[in-house]
């Protein structure tokens, strides 16, 4: 029986890394062939993936299907879902300690 990954839901970095691992292991190959540039929300509590043309639609659909889900948002074929012009390189972990 495969071990189930249980990320610490209080740590944003671990949520993101868990979402990216689920995506890479289960969905990436198929989605990059069939759904380039679409947005994917990975529910890290169930490992289910939701897909749509834009971030708003995919997260609304994911929230509707899994009201208590915790979602990591990905754009298919891209390392990031958004481009920002500036931000602080902050470590989010301190927020939840």
């Amino acid at each position, binding site marked *: 029986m495969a071990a189930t990954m249980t990320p610490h839901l209080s740590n*944003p*970095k671990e*949520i*993101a890394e868990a*979402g*990216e691992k689920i995506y890479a292991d289960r969905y990436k190959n198929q989605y990059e062939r069939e759904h380039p540039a679409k947005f994917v*929300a990975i529910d*890290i509590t169930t490992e289910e993936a939701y897909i749509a043309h*834009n*971030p*708003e639609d995919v*997260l*609304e659909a994911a*929230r509707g299907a899994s009201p208590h*889900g*915790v*979602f*990591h*948002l*990905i754009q298919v074929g891209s*390392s*990031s*879902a*958004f*481009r*920002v*012009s*500036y*931000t*602080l*390189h*902050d470590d*989010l972990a301190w*927020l939840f300690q």
Partner: protein
Amino acid sequence: MTIWLGSFNKAGCPTLKISVSGPFTDSLPFDAILDTGFTGFLSMPLIQAIRLGLVLHGTTRVVLADNSEAYKLTARGQVTVQGISKIGVVILEPQGGDLLLGVAFLRQFGRTLLVSQSGVALADEQELAKAVKTPQELPEPSLSAGGGQLQSR
């Protein structure tokens, strides 16, 4: 044509007055910077999102202008401008100070951003498209003898 007028802040950035709300609290007004280098809907300080009671979606990864990357928390938020409201994905900045409106904000509200030295305006995209004729719709230019500007000597 319905035009939303913005303004420039002290730093010279184009801004727009918006209200942001979550599901359980009244909306709060903000002057948000219009940032076309941001592809998302709205970016706001985490502390303001907590104040508004925005519902957390989870996380995402963003890429910065220098191609470095960072993880961010995301939430569901509603932005209202002059009585029109749209729900979008809000990027939460743990230490940021400004609210940023990105390209997804313009797309969701169907607005075209116009920035000049004298002001900032957001025009309705569909109304603007109707008002501006494309080159195919313009009549062929008529060149009369001696009246053209491209005569060779």
